[in-house]
C-alpha cells in the first residue's frame, strides 16, 4: 500500500495545530494553557474534584476531545503516540485543583504510567492529592491474571464518562475514585485491525498487514494482537471478538451492559453497524441486555482500518453516571 495522503501543514507541528483547532471548535468551551499541550475547561467550580486525562496524541477524539461538561476538566496531550511529560501534567494539576484533589484517568502504557507517576509524586510534594485510575480494558494484551499488564483502549471512554459525571456530582475524591475503578473493573474490549494508520511526522504506516489479512486484538498503535488471519466475514469477526470479551469478565446471563463500538480510523459506519447487528444477536442469545449503545470514533489510531468492541457491566450507579448528559467536541449526548 502507498503512503496515506494527509491534510497537514508542517508535520512537526500537528499537535499544537490540532489543539488550537480544537479550542476553536469548542466555541468557548475550552482554553489552552500558554505554550502547553494542555486543554482546560474554563470556569471550573471551586471545590470540584479535578478530572485529568491524557496520553499520546494521534488518537483523536481521545483524549483532547473529551474535555467538557460532565467529562474531563483537563487533557494533557503528548506528541503523536508519546505520553505527555510530567511538567505539562503538573501545569494541568495547577489549573484544575482548587483543593478537592485530582483524579488521573489514562490508558495503561509504560510511558503514560511513568510520566503521570512522576507528576503525581511531584504534585503530592506540593500538597495536591492525586489518585490514579489506569484503564486496562484490552483483553488481547495479557491473560486475566496479569490484567495490570493490559493496555487501555476504547474502554477509556467508559471510565472517563463515568468519572466525569461523578466528579460533577460529588466533591469527594475517594468516591469519584471508587466509581471510576468500578467502571474500569467492569469494562472489557477487543479490537481488530485491517490496515495500518501512519504517523504524520514520518508518513510511514505503523505496521504492515498483507492485503488479505487482519489481526484480532491488535493494539491502538499497531501492537500485535492474538491472531493474524485471512480476512473473514463481519459475523465471524464479531463472533471472535465477543467470545474473548464475554469469557473474560465473564459477562453472564442477566447482566446489563453498555456497548461501545469504536472506529479505529477509516472503517465505515456501515461496517460497524453490520457488526453491531451480530453483536446484539450474540448478546441476546447470551441473555445479556444492552442498556445503551455508543457507536463512532472514540479512540482512533490515525487512519487505521478496524474497530473495537467494548462492554461495561452496569449497576444502577454506573448507569446513572453513564447516562448523564455530556458535551465536548469529541462526544456529546443529550
Amino acid at each position: 500500500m502507498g503512503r496515506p495522503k494527509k491534510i497537514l501543514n508542517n508535520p512537526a507541528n500537528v499537535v499544537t495545530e490540532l489543539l488550537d483547532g480544537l479550542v476553536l471548535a469548542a466555541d468557548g468551551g475550552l482554553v489552552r494553557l500558554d505554550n502547553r499541550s494542555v486543554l482546560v475547561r474554563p470556569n471550573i467550580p471551586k471545590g470540584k474534584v479535578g478530572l485529568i486525562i491524557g496520553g499520546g496524541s494521534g488518537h483523536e477524539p481521545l483524549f483532547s476531545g473529551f474535555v467538557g461538561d460532565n467529562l474531563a476538566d483537563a487533557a494533557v496531550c503528548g506528541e503523536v503516540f508519546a505520553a505527555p511529560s510530567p511538567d505539562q501534567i503538573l501545569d494541568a494539576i495547577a489549573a484544575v485543583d482548587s483543593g478537592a484533589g485530582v483524579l488521573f484517568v489514562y490508558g495503561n502504557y509504560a510511558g503514560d504510567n511513568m510520566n503521570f507517576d512522576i507528576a503525581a509524586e511531584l504534585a503530592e510534594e506540593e500538597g495536591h492529592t492525586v489518585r490514579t485510575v489506569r484503564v486496562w480494558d484490552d483483553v488481547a494484551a495479557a491473560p486475566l491474571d496479569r490484567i495490570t499488564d493490559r493496555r487501555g483502549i476504547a474502554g477509556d471512554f467508559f471510565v472517563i464518562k463515568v468519572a466525569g459525571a461523578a466528579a460533577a456530582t460529588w466533591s469527594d475524591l475517594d468516591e469519584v475514585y471508587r466509581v471510576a475503578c468500578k467502571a474500569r473493573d467492569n469494562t472489557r474490549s477487543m479490537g481488530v485491525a485491517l490496515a495500518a494508520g501512519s504517523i504524520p511526522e514520518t508518513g510511514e504506516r505503523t505496521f504492515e498487514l498483507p492485503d488479505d489479512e487482519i489481526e484480532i486484538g491488535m493494539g491502538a498503535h499497531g501492537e500485535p494482537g492474538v491472531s493474524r488471519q485471512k480476512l473473514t466475514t463481519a459475523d465471524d469477526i464479531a463472533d471472535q471478538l465477543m467470545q474473548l470479551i464475554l469469557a473474560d469478565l465473564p459477562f453472564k446471563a442477566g447482566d446489563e451492559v453498555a456497548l461501545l463500538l469504536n472506529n479505529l480510523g477509516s472503517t465505515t459506519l456501515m461496517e460497524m453497524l453490520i457488526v453491531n447487528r451480530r453483536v446484539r444477536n450474540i448478546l441476546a442469545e447470551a441473555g445479556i441486555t444492552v442498556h445503551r449503545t455508543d457507536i463512532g470514533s472514540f479512540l482512533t489510531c490515525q487512519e487505521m482500518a478496524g474497530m473495537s468492541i467494548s462492554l461495561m457491566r452496569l449497576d444502577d450507579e454506573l448507569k446513572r453516571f453513564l447516562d448523564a448528559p455530556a458535551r465536548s467536541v469529541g462526544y456529546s449526548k443529550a
Partner: protein
Amino acid sequence: MHETLSPSETRDMLLAVAEYIVERTDMLTQIDQAIGDGDHGIGMRRGFLAVSEQLQGSEPASVEAVVKAAGTAIMAKTGGAAGAIFGTFFRSGSSAFAGRNFDADGVAAFLRIGLEAVEKRGGSRPGQKTMIDALAPAAAAAADAAGGGLSETLARACAAAVAGVEATKGMIATTGKARTLGERSLGHPDPGAVSFSLILTAMRDFVAT
C-alpha cells in the same frame, strides 16, 4: 584525551551526545517500527534538541547541575516511555557528581544510581528487553573498571552496552509497547537500549579526542 571534565567540558560532551542522537533519528525510529509504535527516534530527537537548546551558551555551575539540566530537558520534551526513563536516568544519576567533576568514579556512580532510579521508576529488571539491558551491563563494567581512568571506564561501559543491545535481540519483550509481541520481538534489538548505547558511544568518543 581527558581524564576529567570540567562543568563546561561536560556541557560540551552533552552537546556532542545530543548531536549524535539527533543524527540517528531515522535509525531509531525504524528500530521502533519493528517492535514498538515507530516513534522512538522522533521522541529522542525532541528530547536531545531540547538538551542542545538548554545547554548551548549556558555556563554551568557544576557537573551535577549540567547533567541534571540535561535530564530535565529530556524529561520535559521527549515524551513517551523514553522521556520518563532517560529523563529519570540523567536527573537521578546527576547526584553522583555532587561536589565533583566528570571523572571515572563519578561515571561509575552515575550509571549505578541511574540504573537504580530507572528500575524503580519503570519496575523493570534486566532481561525484559529494555534500555536496562544496555544500562545494567554498562554499570557493571564501569564499576569493574574503577581506578582505570575516565576514558577506559567509558570505553568499557560502552562496549558492555553494545553487547547488551546485541543480547536484547534474543529477548522476548515483557514491558513497553512491544510486550504483546511475544516471540515476534525476537531478532530485533530494543530501541531504548540502542539509544542508551549511542549515548555512551558519543561520551566515549568525546572523551577520547
